């Protein structure tokens, strides 16, 4: 059995993501790749187009604040209980990033369309939302199975890169993500899939009927890097909870540019 899968370092992993790429990431509550994002910032990534699957949080705010982002397509950017995403909000005000506003099920649907290899997929709702006025890529057609029944068609999205954190990877490149199947759909839809993992599983996860249901098969995975606590300061399933004190610290520090720079120096650029 052969495969292009490679186990690399976190820095090698993010070196595969070129400036200007479309980079899709899950939200703060779902296997967020914080360690890889710090490495991306350290390597000076620029002009990334982020895709929030389906929303964005700490990782996106960090990249935006670091000047790595030119555009973002997402259904929301928020630090959740820690409030607005301060660097996103500042960048929108300053006009330094382009925002394509979406709504969560449109993002899921667009990725499902890519997963299925179809050019579009229909979705109920959305008609009458101003989102539609600003998304010329979305179309409303008359339901061919209905009668005077307008319905939204969302075009497929195949992100250049998917980046997320997972509890386990095995040497064949199978990745265990548990019930967070949105990263599986993302992996199926993306052209290149890069993963950080808490630990290496010694064996082949697909041979275990109990582990297989939570896996993404190696056929979709291009490279992985081991990164213990790689979601920190965000949580990782039942392995560890979010670091609430740190996230609160970030939310405070990032309120202004100076505070954000201080945060970057202390927690991103200084860390290996």
């Amino acid at each position: 059995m052969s495969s292009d899968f490679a186990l690399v370092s976190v820095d090698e992993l993010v070196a595969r993501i070129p400036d200007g790429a479309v980079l899709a990431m899950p939200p703060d509550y779902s296997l967020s790749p914080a360690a890889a994002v710090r490495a991306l910032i350290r390597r000076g990534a620029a002009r990334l187009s982020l895709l929030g699957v389906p929303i964005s949080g700490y990782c996106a705010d960090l990249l935006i604040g670091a000047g790595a982002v030119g555009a973002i397509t997402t259904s929301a950017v928020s630090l959740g209980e820690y409030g607005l995403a301060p660097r996103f909000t500042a960048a929108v005000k300053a006009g330094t990033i382009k925002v394509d506003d979406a709504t969560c099920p449109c993002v899921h649907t667009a990725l499902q369309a890519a997963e299925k290899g179809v050019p579009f997929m229909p979705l109920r709702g959305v008609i009458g939302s101003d989102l539609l006025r600003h998304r010329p890529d979305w179309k409303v057609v008359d339901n061919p199975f209905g009668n005077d029944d307008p319905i939204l068609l969302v075009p497929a999205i195949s992100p250049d890169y998917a980046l997320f954190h997972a509890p386990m990877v095995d040497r064949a490149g199978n990745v265990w993500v548990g019930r967070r199947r949105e990263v599986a759909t993302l992996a199926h839809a993306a052209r290149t899939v890069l993963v950080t993992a808490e630990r290496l599983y010694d064996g082949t996860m697909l041979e275990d009927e109990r582990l297989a249901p939570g896996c993404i098969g190696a056929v979709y995975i291009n490279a992985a890097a081991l990164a213990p606590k790689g979601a920190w300061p965000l949580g990782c399933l039942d392995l560890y909870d979010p670091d609430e004190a740190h996230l609160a610290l970030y939310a405070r520090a990032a309120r202004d540019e100076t505070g954000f720079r201080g945060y970057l120096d202390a927690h991103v650029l200084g860390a290996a």
Partner: protein
Amino acid sequence: MSDPAGQPIAPEERLIAAIAALIAEPCDHPVRHAAVGAASPIPAAACMLRQHEGHAMRLSLLQSRRANPFTEGGRELFDLAGQGRIDLFFLGGGQIDGAANINLVGTGTYPQVEARFPGSFGSAYMYFAVPRTILFREEHSRRVLVEKVDFISAPGTSPANVWRRGTPQALVTGRCVFDFVASRARFVLRSLHPGVSAADIVRETGFGFDIPADVPVTPEPTPAQLALLRGPVRAAMEVNYPDFCGRVWGRRAA
């Protein structure tokens, strides 16, 4: 557990009871399954209160850290709603207007917004797919309750030919409860929280609405409801909303 009697009623407990009364209201769409977002402890508590009052109803707490009901990832909530398996949802808004349009994107002329909110989340879909939506926003001001939202994340009503399972049922704020009359796309004042006058509401509300001749005071939670809230509901809330529980009901003894 200490005896809850004698403790003053917290404003949050009033809001919880008000929402529970809306859930209990007879309707073409009885609530068999409600979904509540991670940042919505008051709606969550209202659903739990109904359950403890004997309402046979399933409650799905989104992004619950423990025993999250979803096994298909982020799309499952929207798929469930699309299948018609969710009867009640809660939405808020940076702006809410008199036609129940909600704005979660920002003020000013999009995309050059003045204040940027997080974004529309799933509102543009859930508002259509779920038969009953209760709007909830504690801040009751002309800043939030506007004549016309600057950006429609999700419309309150739709033309007859547009697929839609339901419409907003009501709007609960820190000052009052409005019913929403979908056929006229207009709010009607339903009840005033204790100490609030209709004139206060007119002054603090940016949109026009109807005021019936006799507007009652929002009912206080009953002693039985307070006992449930401070007992089993609080216990169930601790897992996902520890900060809220501490703020409303005090920190637990270790």
